């Protein structure tokens, strides 16, 4: 079947199998920031933003994304660059495998709630697992970014 979606602002058309997952479609189109992790919808590594909402690209058919707008980290580097340095400063990136998912969901969080409390950050990012850091580093990094905006 043929589908068309808007990927990082550009219309992309391709012929796909009906059971192709969005993550495989995205990686086939050069979006290597989208990582395959648990494949049980629980780790958040494959997070992308579809029509403004964070979703798990490992758990949705590419066919279902047809006609929608999908954003990956490749298309949001400028928005991400505002805060990723603060996370790196805390040593929270470690092995780096979970980072793209974390960053994508942090973008979604800050769009939805520009001034979250620590509890709101923890709750929003609960679906992003990190095997290295214990999460405090990410929290400190996001907090440092938010505090820096306060001037």
């Amino acid at each position: 079947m043929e589908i068309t979606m808007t990927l990082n602002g550009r219309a992309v058309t391709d012929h796909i199998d009906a059971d192709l997952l969005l993550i495989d479609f995205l990686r086939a189109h050069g979006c290597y920031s989208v990582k395959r992790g648990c494949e049980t919808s629980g780790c958040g590594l494959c997070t992308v933003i579809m029509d403004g909402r964070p979703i798990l690209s490992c758990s949705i058919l590419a066919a279902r994304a047809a006609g929608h707008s999908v954003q990956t980290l490749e298309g949001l580097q400028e928005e991400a660059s505002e805060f990723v340095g603060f996370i790196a400063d805390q040593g929270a990136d470690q092995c780096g495998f979970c980072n793209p998912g974390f960053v994508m969901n942090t973008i979604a969080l800050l769009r939805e709630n520009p001034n979250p409390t620590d509890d709101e950050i923890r709750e929003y990012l609960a679906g992003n697992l990190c095997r290295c850091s214990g999460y405090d580093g990410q929290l400190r990094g996001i907090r440092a970014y938010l505090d820096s905006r306060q001037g």
Partner: protein
Amino acid sequence: MITIQNYVRAQSLEEAYRLNQNRRSRVLGGMLWLKMGNASVNTAIDLCDLGLDTIEETADQFVIGATATLRQMELHPGLNAYTGGAVAEAVRHIIGVQFRNMATVGGSVWGRFGFSDVLTVLLGMETYVELYHGGILPLEQFAAMKYDRDILVRVIIQKKPGRFVYQSMRNQRTDFPVIACAVSRIGEEYRAVIGARPGRALVIRDERGLLKEGITGERARAFADDAAWRTPTEGNLRGSAAYRTHLIRVLTERGLLALGGGYEWKSR
């Protein structure tokens, strides 16, 4: 692993129903649980073009379309005003925001999963399901039915005056619950709904009238003991049957005590 030969966005409920009569067809919900299984699907039927992705509130009911997401439930101001936040509490522990942006109310209710927080909290209210061919029937009746090839169209919650409390016990954040417990008073009727037993959620009513004079610590404990005694439990990797029975007693009592002092929604 799941394989799918054809993907169809149904353009009408009749088309979806007709396609679903083939036993190798599947209606897609959020696809999160479906993806975990092994299945060879001939036609995956997507309801996403049917305008069922809304939660509508009227003076006397909420109408939740089958493709509305758990995140929509979590954030719906009217639904959470009516339940005193019980609906948000029921779903906010489910994996993460991304998951709840995908998981649908229809998929959760249709699945009648034993671990379901959604089924548990909805059974605590005056809830009905609308099936394309089966019509409107109480959720409690639907929850006990076997799977068939009908289409779940909407979930309807009647806004009867009441109070609602939802609690769950998890071994770890974002995991399935070890036990889920919705406690409510709708009009004069008290009920405790016990989910993750780990079987399908079960409604326990105050058949002995233990709470008919109102909630006190002693009466709450008596009803909690009754609920624990009447609810069948089993063990699995998350907890033993005895542990679940203990949790039912604890959460039902706590829920009732919270209910006693909680917010009550009244119709205007």
